């Protein structure tokens, strides 16, 4: 059962050369009770995808096609006005990364919670505050103190936990975290991930974690989706994807991460640069320029995201076994089999 079903989502940005897709034909399920990790380099379109889940693509952008079905709300792309506003925060909670200032600097946390409650026409504001304090206490914060504080009085890690309180206090069932571990030191990273796992389990959520850090996500996610050049190129259960990557990009990404391979000397940087809106290939596979397995067809036809195991999907013309064993003309720079 899926809490959120994204189908064929395309998001475009207006540029000097016309409308260009930042997310192209993406399909993704957020399953109830599971944590999905969405990984990709900066510019891969993962943040745009996350914002479009709230139908909140920033100004020169628009959702050009596809649907986003949220359980109990309907197709978010068709909502507007008050219904959309209520869905944001009410059905889906969004948590900013720790380095961002997601709270009004001039108001205490408690007053902003009341603003949130009034905006969503919550009848019992006392209960809302009580729930917020309870959530805060469960995440290791002093609820009473935090609600009396201003944003500048909290550390980055505390702000992020307060962000989670805001996201969940209205009983949203879907939680989206944007780069939750970026800008935190290793110890705080671990504790934030523990907390996310804990609130996820306690509240029976469907959680999406957006990150560029495949190492961090591998510690708590149930499923993994990999994005490149605005496309989801591979997804599946976390361990299977990590152990048997079937897309060359996923494989290279894992190869570049010492934490997973467990071998610092074996970690290899990915050659080349990730594409942006204007440089991404218009025809064929978007990864082919950096792909050690690229064959002729890759330049002509874009591979479709198709299921190949019961639980997995991939978008690549090359056979999974070929990618896995890496026998075909692998350039030395790209990760050799771990």
């Amino acid at each position: 059962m899926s809490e959120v079903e994204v189908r064929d989502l395309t998001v475009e940005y207006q540029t000097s050369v016309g409308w260009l897709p930042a997310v192209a034909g993406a399909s993704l399920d957020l399953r109830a009770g599971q944590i999905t990790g969405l990984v990709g380099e900066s510019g891969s379109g993962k943040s745009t995808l996350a914002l479009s889940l709230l139908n909140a693509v920033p100004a020169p952008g628009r959702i050009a096609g596809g649907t986003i079905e949220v359980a109990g709300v309907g197709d978010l792309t068709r909502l507007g006005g008050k219904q959309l506003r209520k869905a944001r925060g009410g059905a889906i909670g969004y948590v900013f990364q720790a380095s961002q200032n997601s709270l009004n600097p001039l108001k205490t946390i408690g007053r902003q919670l009341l603003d949130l409650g009034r905006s969503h026409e919550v009848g019992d504001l006392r209960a809302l505050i009580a729930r917020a304090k309870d959530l805060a206490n469960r995440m290791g914060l002093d609820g009473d103190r935090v609600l009396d504080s201003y944003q500048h009085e909290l550390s980055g890690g505390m702000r992020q936990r307060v962000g989670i309180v805001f996201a969940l206090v209205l009983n949203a069932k879907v939680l989206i975290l944007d780069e939750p571990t970026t800008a935190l030191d290793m110890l705080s990273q671990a504790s934030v991930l523990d907390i996310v796992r804990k609130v996820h389990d306690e509240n029976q959520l469907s959680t999406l974690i957006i990150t560029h850090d495949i190492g961090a996500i591998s510690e708590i996610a149930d499923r993994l989706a990999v994005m490149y050049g605005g496309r989801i190129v591979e997804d599946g259960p976390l361990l299977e994807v990590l152990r048997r990557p079937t897309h060359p990009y996923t494989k290279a990404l894992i190869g570049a991460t010492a934490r997973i391979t467990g071998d610092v000397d074996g970690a290899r940087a990915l050659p080349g640069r990730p594409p942006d809106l204007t440089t991404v290939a218009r025809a064929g596979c978007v990864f082919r320029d950096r792909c050690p397995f690229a064959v002729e067809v890759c330049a002509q036809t874009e591979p479709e995201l198709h299921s190949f195991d019961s639980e997995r999907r991939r978008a690549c013309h090359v056979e999974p076994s070929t990618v896995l064993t890496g026998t075909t003309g692998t350039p030395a720079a790209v990760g050799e089999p771990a």
Partner: protein
Amino acid sequence: MAATATLAASVRSRRPALTAFRKAVTRKPGRIIGLAIIVFFILLAICGPWFYGRLAVDPNSLYAAPSAKHWLGTDFAGSDVLQEVVTGGRYVLATAALSALFTSLFGVTIGLVAGYQRGLTDSALMRLTDFVLTIPGLPLLIILSTVWNFGSPWKMGLVLGVTGWGGVARAVRSQALSLRERGFLEAARGLGLSRRHILLKEMLPNVAPYAAMQLMLSMIAFIGAEVGLFFLGLVPFSSTNWGVMLNQAVFSGGAMETPSALIYLLAPLVCILVLTLGIVLFLDAIDELFNPRLRERV
């Protein structure tokens, strides 16, 4: 030397800056109009007086209406108004240019040195800047007008420059500090460049465009102040000047009550208005180059 070149190029290379500038100016018609107005007034100040010899006075036609002979009519003494505006423009613009020169001399030097040296020198220089900024410029000028006679463009420009460099110094210093934050100075010092070289060859070109913007802003204020001092009658009328025209029109020419004198009063007013508009429109382009946040989405 080659290392120097790459360092300079890494922050801002000459050519792309020029292209970006041209792009910013041509992106909106208003900016081209602004530039055109500024160029027009500069040409007027340089070439205008060539067309007129000495001020011709026609005592038989006082406050004459506009005609083929006197395009903007004549004033209370029978002088041609257009001629007065054109010759007066030279003083106004020459003074503005000179005061900008002095302001940039003081402001850029003090700002650069403060931003480069930091520490005690910086705080001492910034105290001084604060003081200059706190002393209200115009009242000071008014009092100084009893001590000095700044009737000539040179003297007026010097006085305006001496009293008005605070803003430019502040701006240049903050710009120099941001260069510092980008590791620019450390890199230059690492290359073993002398302080003189770093200040003049590396930092100056980088703060120059920003300083130019500040200068144009203060030039608007300078034009207001110099014309204003003449308007208030505080500076002896040694030359024809828009401020003198205004003073005569309002306080002795009775232009407020005489409909036929209206053009005499309005001509310098409109000139100041249009010149200000020109600078403002043009500044919009420069502003865009420095405040990417204000830049409109593509």
